[in-house]
């Protein structure tokens, strides 16, 4: 990878800071993808530690391992971290690495913007977690229900929830910019012949997700900005005693929040749709159904948000309507499940780690889907809302669904990303530990919820029948922790002495397997002719064995009169993305203290925004030059 266009000063030997500088200034989608994934794994571990602490607290009745306040902080940070700093960026990272390869492009449509997305994600994560050191961690839940969150979180007069508000907005900017990039890349940089209906299903899923992001994030932006005003400037959008409306918060939040759960799960659907055909040695069954059901889910996802609010008193008509739309969503979801099963059916299955995770995904996700349908019925929801039943539901879809699919994707694409295989033996060990641990942790939650154990509560009385299963859940959580450690061990060992992967270790179908592992900076020297949905398969087993030149990312975006010949031009590295992200984060720190130290805070905001402007100017001039 050291052969990028990066002009490395020839000062004798290469020092570590040369490498570091290369990564800091990189605009290569593959490196950015790897940075996303590595950072997100770190946050995944961090969020996992939060969860372990929560589970230790709940292992016994009337435990005092954590104080109620710390418990609130941990479940808030656990949820926020897992949603915004683990699963979303893991998906974004896989998308970044794989999408340009899958559509046969040299890079993303806006490489510098891509780097900016990553730096904003990293800085947003650091910002959020710096609350542990220089303030109080947010403590009003990942849903930040107002007026609890508007009054200063659970502990009045701390800026805990300001960390949350500002952090979420930095991450929101990152996600929106990233999604614009995905949309434009998929729309505009497809290789010749890569029509929409030949696009890999992972690309379809990520495309729908990108639209979900750009249409749903503005809602949480507005909600959180209004919350910030309530908290710091004396407005009362969400304060009922002064005319505000807590329900408004819930509507704005869940209008974002429900699409968000599909933002988390659709990439998983995409990964599964790639893995099943390859490991069944068959084309995917019902390609069009899977592609269009993603679109349908995307649409319907915007019509169901108030199923999170059945018990707040919207009235029977609203409840019935949102119940109906929620039930409708299970139709396109079911369509996918049957297509996946039909893909496996009669295939000659190649039972490797990715397929283990894939099959388990179906099993676990269906359980989560069924409890989802149950919760979508208001009478049942009245009984189970705010109990552990809901916690069971969403962990089956998020852990059993999203995380299992992401691990499937890791085992599948890791060889392409790093050129070496992950160990199958460790992979299978990891799989069984995770599968058993996952079920042990989350299955009893359904039962506990049914018998009345409330969620978001730091402890429970003894003698209610909660003890045994809570202890089991804690043991399950430790198994998951062990399993994740095995994965990290596997990754490290693979870097050192994993088996060399070769270009196409799984006998793949899609374009990423047509180049080297890892791919060169420009991705492809030449592309197979794309006449079907499985160009690499055609290349290996079909008649069509032609090559074409890949599309030039730069030429597609350029506006020059004299068109550069279709040689490959990659944009030079740039340090403006990290500078811009730094400026924005600095402004956010300023806003954090706006109500306690106005002067310094204003200075930080002005300096931060000036840095942002300088960086924008720098980026614009670089864009004009290439």
């Amino acid at each position, binding site marked *: 990878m050291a052969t990028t266009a990066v002009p490395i000063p020839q000062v004798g030997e290469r020092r570590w800071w040369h490498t570091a500088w290369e990564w800091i200034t990189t605009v290569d989608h593959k490196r950015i993808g790897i940075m996303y994934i590595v950072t997100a794994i770190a946050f995944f571990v961090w969020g996992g530690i939060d969860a372990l602490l929560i589970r230790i607290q709940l292992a016994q009745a009337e435990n005092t391992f954590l104080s109620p306040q710390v418990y609130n902080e941990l479940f808030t940070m656990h949820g926020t971290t897992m949603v915004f700093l683990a699963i979303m960026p893991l998906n974004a990272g896989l998308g970044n690495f794989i999408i340009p390869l899958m559509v046969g492009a040299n890079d993303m449509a806006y490489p510098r913007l891509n780097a900016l997305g990553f730096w904003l994600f990293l800085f947003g994560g650091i910002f959020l977690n710096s609350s542990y050191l220089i303030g109080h961690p947010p403590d009003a839940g990942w849903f930040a229900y107002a007026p609890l969150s508007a009054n200063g979180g659970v502990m009045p007069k701390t800026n805990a929830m300001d960390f949350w508000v500002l952090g979420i907005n930095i991450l929101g900017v990152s996600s929106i910019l990233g999604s614009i990039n995905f*949309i*434009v890349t998929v729309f505009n940089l497809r290789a010749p012949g890569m029509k929409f209906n030949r696009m890999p299903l992972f690309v379809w899923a990520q495309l729908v997700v990108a639209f979900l992001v750009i249409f749903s*994030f503005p*809602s949480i932006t507005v909600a959180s900005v209004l919350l910030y005003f309530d908290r710091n400037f004396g407005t009362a*959008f969400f304060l009922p005693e002064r005319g505000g409306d807590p329900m408004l918060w819930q509507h704005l939040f869940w209008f974002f929040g429900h699409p968000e759960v599909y933002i988390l799960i659709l990439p998983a659907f995409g990964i599964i749709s790639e893995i099943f055909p390859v490991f069944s040695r068959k084309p995917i069954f019902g390609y069009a159904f899977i592609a269009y059901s993603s679109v349908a889910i995307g649409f319907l996802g915007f019509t169901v948000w108030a199923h999170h609010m059945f018990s707040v008193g919207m009235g029977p008509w609203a409840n019935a309507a949102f119940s109906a739309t929620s039930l409708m969503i299970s139709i396109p979801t079911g369509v996918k499940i049957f297509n996946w099963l039909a893909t496996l059916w009669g295939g000659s299955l190649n039972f490797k780690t990715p397929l283990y995770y894939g099959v388990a995904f179906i099993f676990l996700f269906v359980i989560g889907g069924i409890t989802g349908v149950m919760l979508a019925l208001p009478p049942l929801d009245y009984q189970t809302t705010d109990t552990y039943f809901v916690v069971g539901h969403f962990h089956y879809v998020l852990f059993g669904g999203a995380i299992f699919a992401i691990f499937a994707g890791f085992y599948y694409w890791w060889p392409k990303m790093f050129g070496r295989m992950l160990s199958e033996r460790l992979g299978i060990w990891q799989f069984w530990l995770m599968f058993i641990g996952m079920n042990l942790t989350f299955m009893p939650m359904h039962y506990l919820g049914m018998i009345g154990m409330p969620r978001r509560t730091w402890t429970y009385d003894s003698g209610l029948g909660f003890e045994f299963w809570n202890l089991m859940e804690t043991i399950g959580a430790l198994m998951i922790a062990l399993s994740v450690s095995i994965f990290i061990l596997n990754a490290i060992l693979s870097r050192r002495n994993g088996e060399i992967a070769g270009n196409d270790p799984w006998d793949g179908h899609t374009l990423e397997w047509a180049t080297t592992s890892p791919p060169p900076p420009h991705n492809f020297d030449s592309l197979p002719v794309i006449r079907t949905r499985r160009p690499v398969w055609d290349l290996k087993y079909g008649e069509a064995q032609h090559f074409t030149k890949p599309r030039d990312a730069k030429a*597609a975006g350029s*506006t020059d009169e004299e068109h550069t010949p279709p040689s490959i031009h990659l944009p030079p590295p740039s340090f403006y993305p990290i500078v811009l992200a730094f400026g924005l984060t600095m402004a956010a720190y300023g806003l954090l203290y706006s109500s306690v130290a106005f002067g310094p805070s204003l200075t930080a905001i002005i300096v931060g925004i000036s840095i942002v402007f300088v960086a924008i100017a720098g980026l614009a001039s670089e864009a004009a030059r290439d």
Partner: protein
Amino acid sequence: MAQAVAHDQKEHAAGAAHGHGGHHPPTSLGVNTRKLGLWTFISSEAIFFTALISTYLVLKPRNLALGGPVPEDFLGITLTAILAFILLMSSLTMVLALNAVEHNDRRGTHLWLGATILLGLMFLGGQTYEFNKLWSEGFHTVTITKQDGKIEQIGVAEHHLEAELEHLHEEYPGAQIQQGPRKPVTWTTSIFGSTFFTLTGFHGTHVGIGVIWLSIVLAMSLRGAISSRNSLTVEMAGLYWHFVDLVWVAIFTLIYLI
């Protein structure tokens, strides 16, 4: 999709010649990459303003029920209509500017870009004036305790107060009528103020960004860096500008007229 397919074939036919004159280099969709990105961004912004406008509309009845200021007493239609007219005119001048660029008409480009910027500034000036006016005007929350013990609150503009009190005494004979202290219409004194200033403030900020963007384009043009070859630079700023105008049309209709 049919379009994309058709384009694909055209592109194959065009081969290395890259078809249509380099101005719009080939992309899978046939739309310029930067323009597509801006469109995507704008669609996201549309949701942003939809959420803000919804917030205004949802909270409006609560504002009235708690004796907040009645919007009609404070929002002068005349001024806003003028502002709306100014912005719509600026959309027109923006179109003329782009047309001038495409015809390599340097003077026209400068003229119309300048006019657009000026109209934008006039809009911002008008908004500042309106904000100021609101801040300096007051309202009172009048509490009516009726004989059957029911309590009602209404917000009354300072300039109506006397007439309104008289009217209330007539309408509810025997009711106890209490007049609250004078409060200016600011961001924090009522839900109306909070929602109104937030919404129009965010819109005004967008206008401001548009003015800065257009000024940069104008500066480039004055240095001779803009011609029909890179008219896209002007077109992009224009797209954004038209969007900001359109948002004002929505705000004008939903907030001022209804």
